[in-house]
């Protein structure tokens, strides 16, 4: 279980980093979203992975660490709000600047130069 978990977090992080290094704002937003998923899963695992464990006392034989669950909840809410904001900002910059490049201007294509 640990190996699969670690692999998924790693894959999500790698995809997130790759996408957030792209030039267009939409892939960047998706990349940041993936990165925040990876972060949430990672944070969740920092209390060690437990199967069938409850976070509330007196409900089960096995207990899971409740703190990372609370942390993840906070991180999800904040990450969600931030993603919403950056999405709106991306649309705004598309409207204001006339293109969806993160720098606000497109790199000149070689073919266009020839024309």
């Amino acid at each position, binding site marked *: 279980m640990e190996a699969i978990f670690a692999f998924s977090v790693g894959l999500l992080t790698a995809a997130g980093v790759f996408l957030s290094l792209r030039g267009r704002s939409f892939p960047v937003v998706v990349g*940041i979203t993936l990165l925040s998923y990876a*972060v949430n899963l990672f944070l969740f695992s920092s*209390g060690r992975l437990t199967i069938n464990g409850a976070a509330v006392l007196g409900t089960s034989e096995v207990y899971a660490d409740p703190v990372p669950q609370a*942390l993840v909840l906070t991180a999800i809410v*904040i990450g969600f709000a931030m993603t919403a*904001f950056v999405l709106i*900002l991306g649309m705004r*910059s598309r409207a204001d600047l006339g293109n969806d490049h993160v720098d606000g201007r497109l790199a000149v294509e070689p073919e266009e130069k020839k024309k």
Partner: protein
Amino acid sequence: MIQQHLTLLPVIFPLIMGALLLLPPITNSLARQRNVALAACLVLIALSVWMVQVASSGSIQLYYLGDWKPPFGILFVADRTSALMVLLSSSLTLGALLYATGGDDKTGMFFYPLFLFQIAGINGAFLTGDLFNLFVFFEVLLIASYSLLIHGGGKQRTQAAMHYVILNLVGSAFFLFALGILYGTLGTLNMADMASRIHQLQPDEQALVKAGGLLLLVVFGLKSALLPLQFWLPRTYSAASAPVAALFAIMTKVGIYSILRVHTLVFGPEAGDLANLIQPWLWPLSLLTLTIGAVGALASPSLRMLAANLVIISVGTLLIAAAIATPQAIAAALYYLVHSTLIAAALFLLADAIGEQRGKPGDRFVSARRVQQPILLGSAFFIAALSLAGLPPFSGFVGKLMLLQASSEPSIASWVWPALLISSLAAIIALARAGTSLFWRVSGENSASEPAAVLKLSGVWLLLICSPLMVIFAGSITEYTRLAAEQLFNIQPTLELILPQGAK
């Protein structure tokens, strides 16, 4: 009764006032919004003065949210350093808000509520004793700063905001990774508890904690504009409206404060094998930050850009002190931090006021119409320039002198002195060029613009007057910062106070 809750008030009060500003009787009229925001700011200053007074006796105030005792609950800690930072942020706010009444608050909605929310976040970051809570307050101040940066709209701001928001979102992801690593190995995020547990690590866990600690440096470095992460700063600060840029002058200091706090308390000299974790990194990076700030200052095409590069110089200077990491250096850094924040903010406001009166060229260094109030603005610029460049008789001189004295050991001085002095020289050259081209290279007819409103300029002067005041009261201020730095390094009493049963 109020004193019991004093530690929480600088956070909760601006939050409540910001929410009140959104409600009908106040939100309908701009005049009411201005009055209530200024009144809130005055109350905030009174609260923080009280806090400094309480903290100056040397007692550390603790506040347990919901009365959950540490290490389980969220903890607020007000020692000398945090009280000083809270006072700094509230005084800065008053200057910026006074300037904003001159018209920058009209360009969009919810200017004052956002301003107060950002103050709540900044104060929270200064007062919290819990690393996850620090993350939350970072996000509070960031989301307010995103909206403030783009306030008023325009192409330049949208462009700058895009970079700023994306960079900080990635920074937040890094922060959470660091928190996950540290919680997984240390089992706690209460800073005092972390400091007491860092000795008991298994050797294989030490590498992980080291990675977490260095990741934190990356995050705080992004906030404070440490060298490879500083490229966003000049553009962002010069695109923001003047009061917002002035408020942002303290945002880099939030990062520096976090480095000072986390890396003295948790990874400080008493952390066993992980002691002084960041020093080998901080040394070259801070010196290079100083250099790139000086190069940027010399190359700046406008006064705002110059002010932004001077902020980078001050960040480099402060981080050199953090790299030296002796109580004497930190005491000098705290003094310099207060000075550089206030004066850099004043310069941002001044750049806007000068730009408005020069017509179309604004604050760019080209010849333009004469400014309407050359003596008033000129003398303000003169004081700000002398103070930022570190010339006597103003506070920059005292701050830099203290820092040079703190680094007088030959092995350190051979690196620090040339860097500090040459960067000061670069600042003098850049500011002299700025002053001559802004005020003396006059062309065309006289300015037709109106003179700046009295209330607006009073914001600038309020911030500037702090510079001579900091020299006149230098004795008591340096005594305070010296004790604050000692308190920062002497962590055992803090640990015993926070964790009466568990401190080792």
